[in-house]
Structure formats: structure tokens, C-alpha cells
């Protein structure tokens, strides 16, 4: 079994730090909100279409999905919230995100998107079910003890540097019209940016009331049940880069595998010891078994 070398927290081989500088590609904003930690902004400079998950991973972020849904439901970005981190979720004292089942509605990564110079919009689609907008933005904010109305919006305005003051040119995305978690967004015709009609940043009403969030909607074929339907949609106010929080491009982010090894107290020697013990016990088992079989026959 030959495994790929360990990935870094920020895979510097993927994506670029900071905003995208051209209308090609998509800028990904990760806002840790109440978890603490500096917001990270990175660019996924790919001109062809791809899903929200492609953008997140392509920008170099290290993510983890829950065991139940796989990467269709992102439970950790940059190892936050880590398995040893106690989340102050109201009503669930001592909760830790184990990434086994769907995270609680009071503590999960919410998935947002925006066109350039548009308002942040809570995604109605799963991360694997929608395509990112070229020249636009993908946002991930940790929603802690928030309701559907108070979901925190990414605190970095979706405005590429040098384009402030331009009008919003992204189309409003249609909502999913079935409950099928495998439904995919119909890819929009790739019209040139200049021909797109400006879109008013009005608030659309909630489609469905539910207690469970959905940053992702795709189910692995083997898992029979369906993901919970999405949270109601919210739209932020007109973006203003002046209100941006401090952010980095993630250049100084530590190696996630090192962080994990550190947090779990794991030792590089322990697997070797385990392997050695298994071999030793197997040899002892074989020896004892043959000895006793011989004693029985005699």
C-alpha cells in the first residue's frame, strides 16, 4: 500500500494566496468566526467549470467530510473545529466535532457564494451539487449558535481588488426544485460577463424550514438515506470592502498532519510497535498451536 505524501494545511501547490486578480477562477474565503483564527482568502485560478468542492480544495484548503456523507458535508476546514476542540454549543455541553454524523445546526460550516460585487448568498445547493461562479466568490463561515436568520456572513466583502464600485453581474441561482440530494444544478450557459444582466440584491424568502443545515447535498450511492434539506436562504447587505476583517492568504498555516499528530498525542513509533507486537503474537500463536497439536497426536 503506497500512500500519497501528506497534504499540508494549505497546499501551496494548489491555488494562490489572496484574491483572484482576474475574472478567471474563483476566490475562496474561509472565516472561522467564533472559532477564532485569522480569516483566510485564497484563489482557485481555474477557468473551466467545477463544483464548490473543487474550488475549496483547489484553492489549497484542507477539508474533512463527515464519515456518513463523505465530502458532501464538510465538517472541518483547516482542521477546525478539531476533534479535541470543545464547541460551546448551547444545550450540548462538551460537544466535540467527531465528523461521524451530520454536525448540529448550532455548529457547522455554512456555505455561501457571491458574484463579484454582489452580496453573499447562503447556498441552497450542496457543495458537490453547484458550480462556482467564474470571477466570483465562495464563502465558508463557521455558524455557531446561530439561527437561520443570524447565520454569520463571511466578513470579507466579495469584491476583487480594483473592481470596487462596479455593479453586481452574477445571475441569481435557481433553487433546487426537488428533494433529491443527487440533483445537480443545471450548468448556466457560459455567457460572457459583459452580457450578463445586473441582478438586484434583494432578499429571497426561505424555501424550507428545517433544523438541519446543508453545506452539502450529495449522497454517496451506497448510503440509502437522504441528506437533510437546506437551511433558509439569507442574503447579506451590499458588500463594502471597508468593513473587511483582517485576513491572510494562509501562507503561514501549519502542516495539518503535524497538528493532528500533535493533538492526538500519536507517536511515530507506536505503529511500528503495534506491527511488531502483531507479528510476535502471530508467531507465538503458530508455535503454540503446532506444539499443542503435536502433543495431542502423541
Amino acid at each position, binding site marked *: 500500500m503506497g*500512500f*500519497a505524501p*501528506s*497534504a499540508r494545511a494549505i497546499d501551496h501547490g494548489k491555488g494562490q494566496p489572496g484574491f483572484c486578480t482576474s475574472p478567471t477562477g474563483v476566490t475562496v474565503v474561509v472565516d472561522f468566526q467564533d472559532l477564532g483564527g485569522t480569516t483566510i482568502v485564497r484563489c482557485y485560478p481555474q477557468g473551466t467549470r467545477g463544483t464548490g468542492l473543487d474550488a475549496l480544495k483547489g484553492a489549497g484548503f*484542507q*477539508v*474533512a*467530510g463527515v*464519515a*456518513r456523507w*463523505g*465530502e458532501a458535508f464538510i465538517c472541518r476546514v483547516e482542521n477546525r473545529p*478539531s*476533534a*479535541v476542540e470543545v464547541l460551546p454549543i448551547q444545550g450540548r455541553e462538551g460537544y*466535540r466535532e*467527531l*465528523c*461521524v*454524523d451530520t454536525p448540529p445546526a448550532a455548529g457547522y460550516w455554512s456555505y455561501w457564494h457571491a458574484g463579484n460585487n454582489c452580496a453573499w448568498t447562503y447556498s441552497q445547493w450542496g457543495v458537490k451539487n453547484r458550480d462556482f461562479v467564474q470571477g466570483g466568490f465562495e464563502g465558508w463561515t463557521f455558524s455557531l449558535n446561530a439561527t437561520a436568520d443570524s447565520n454569520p456572513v463571511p466578513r470579507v466583502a466579495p469584491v476583487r481588488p480594483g473592481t470596487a464600485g462596479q455593479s453586481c453581474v452574477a445571475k441569481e441561482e435557481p433553487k433546487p426544485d426537488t428533494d*433529491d440530494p*443527487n440533483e445537480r444544478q443545471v450548468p448556466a450557459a457560459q455567457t460572457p460577463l459583459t452580457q450578463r444582466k445586473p441582478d438586484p440584491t434583494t432578499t429571497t424568502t426561505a424555501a424550507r424550514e428545517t433544523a438541519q443545515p446543508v453545506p452539502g447535498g450529495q*449522497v*454517496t*450511492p*451506497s448510503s440509502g438515506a437522504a441528506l437533510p434539506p437546506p437551511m433558509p436562504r439569507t442574503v447579506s447587505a451590499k458588500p463594502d470592502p471597508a468593513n473587511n476583517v483582517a485576513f491572510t492568504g494562509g501562507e503561514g498555516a501549519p502542516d*495539518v*498532519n503535524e497538528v*493532528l*499528530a500533535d*493533538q*492526538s*498525542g*500519536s*507517536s511515530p513509533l*507506536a*505503529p511500528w*510497535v*503495534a*506491527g511488531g*507486537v*502483531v507479528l510476535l*503474537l*502471530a508467531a*507465538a*500463536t503458530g508455535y*503454540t*498451536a503446532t506444539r*499443542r497439536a503435536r*502433543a*495431542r497426536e502423541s
Partner: protein
Amino acid sequence: MRTATYFLPRELHPAAWWLWALGLAVAASRTTNPWLLGTILAVAGYVVVARRTDAPWAMAFRMYLYLGAAIVFFRVFFRFVFGGAEGETILVRLPEIPLPEWAAGIRLLGAVSAESLLGGFYDGLRLATMVVCLGAANALANPKRLLKAMPPALYEVGTAVIVALSVFPQLAESVVRVRRARKLRGGGGKRFHVLRAIMIPVLADALDRSLRLAASMDSRGYGRAGMVDARKRLVTGALMIIGLLGVCVGVYATLDGSTPRYLAGPFLAGGLVVGLLGFRTAGARVQRSRYRPGQWNLAEVVVALCGIAVAVVLFTTSSVDPTNLNPSLIILSWPMLSWAPLCGVLVGVLPAFLTPVPDTEKVPA
């Protein structure tokens, strides 16, 4: 001297081995880390080989190993068949079989990724380890002595429980016996013929022995209800069955971290209360003496404590530090391991050294 008699060859109380094996199985159910699961398998295998008797059910341990291997194989195989494309490291691209519209969501063949194969392997290995742990209990514990040690209150359900527990060991034992008999007769033949020549005697043998067991238990007064009126029996039976169901649901929910918590504590407590009520009413009218009851000495305590210790260590480490117990499959890497769970699992091997050998070894055949 206490130490002089401690290691005198004798058969340990079967409940001690069951506690030990269930502790290992509970530990295995808490982790998908292949290092830990492999260690648990090695520990169970070694203890079985070191401390089993020459009884037929003890010799059937390898059947559980075969069963475990089959479980792992099928888990991985199904990831091949029903789409294993979760993850980035695609190993092979099999031609995908197109399915009609109504079968949307099901995928046949197609790309297979290392992540999903490993997921299937870890998952299958966990189940296989639990099965092998139960096999270890069946190999080490004498089912007939277990039946004898059953508290009187359990006689109503005890028969059913023992038959259920001993069905698989009896089947495995029958397979071993029939194969040995065939070998002695020098039987060969075509493959289909061999299957028939083994399957039919095995099934007939297992059925015969189950009936014999039932008859012998009947003659010893198990499940006899001549003196009690029907309504009372119905109430006791219902109380016990409901209690046991509640305990089963509660134990399942307690052990499985992803089930809702309200299924765990309340069901376990409620089931215990109802079951104990049933035990009381049933035990009040069963009065039997017991011939040479099984001993429960220091060695039994050691065995049981070792098993419980393994489970406790895995439980505490999984709530303190769950990172290593379920290795991430999103980024492929060698699963990490920390010392605490490894040392905890290794406690399980102590019964191989700290218990007296079974006395059958000393008795000439």
C-alpha cells in the same frame, strides 16, 4: 500457599472468558484504526491458542477466522461493485454499467478510489474483529458449563439464549467433525459432490445435537412450567422479553456513538428495571439445587478485569482523543497511533500468562 494453587490446571469459569471477549469486542467496535484492530485480532488469537481446551468447540476457532476474512473480502468487493469513487486517488477505472432512470443513485462499477477501498477495508476489519472476539469466547468458554452457571431466574429464557449462543459453535464443530471423518475415509470426488457430502451431514448433525441439547435440558427441568398458571407465566415472559429488548437497544445505543442519546441511558435503565422485575417473579418460583457450582476465583477476576480494562481504555481514549481511532480517509496517509489505546489493547493478552492452563492438557487422551 495461594500462588501454588493459583496455577493448578483447571477450566476457568465460562462467564469470565465471555466478559473478557466482550470487552475486546466492545473495544473493537470503538475504532476503525487498522493497527488497533490488528492488535486486537492477534491478542484474541494468541489467548485462544494458549488457553483453549481440546474440546470440539475450541477447535472450531478457525471457522471464525475464515468468516472474518470473508467479511473483509466482501466489504472491499462491494466497494468495487457499487461505486467507490469517493476520494481523489483513483486506482482503476472499470467500465461503468449504465442503469435505468429508476435506479438513480446506484452505480455499478466505474472508477474505484483507494479511499473508498480503504474505507471498506477498515469497516470490514472492525466487524471481522468483533466476530473473531465472539469466536474467541466460544472457543474458550465451555457452553455446557455456561448453561450450568445460569441464574435460576434466567431459566425461562436461558434455554433460548444458550441454544442461540451455541448454534454457531455447533455448526463449526460439525464442519470440523464431518471433514475429519471424510478425511479418514479418504473421500475425494468432484467439487459439487464434496459440497453435498459436507453440507448435508453438517446440517443434520447440528439439528440432531440441538434437539439433543433441548431434550437434555428439558429432562433437567429447564423451562418447565407445570406448577405455574398460564397468566403468571405470560406476565413473567413478557416482562423478561421487554426487559431484554430494552437492554439490547440501550446497549447498542451506548456503544454506537452516532445513535441519539435518548436511546442510550433511558432504554438501558428501563430495560434493566423491567428485566429485573421479570427475574424476580421468575426466580421466586424456581428452586433448584446445583451440583458442584462453577468456581469464581482470582483467576476469573483477572480475566474479566483484563477484558473490561481494554474496553474502558478504548472508551476513554475515544472521548478524549478521537483523532486516531477513526483514521481520516479524506487525505490518504498511514493511520496514526498513540500509546494509550495500544497499551490498553495489549492488556487483553495478559490472561494468556496469568491464568491456569486448562486441565485437559494434562489428561491423557
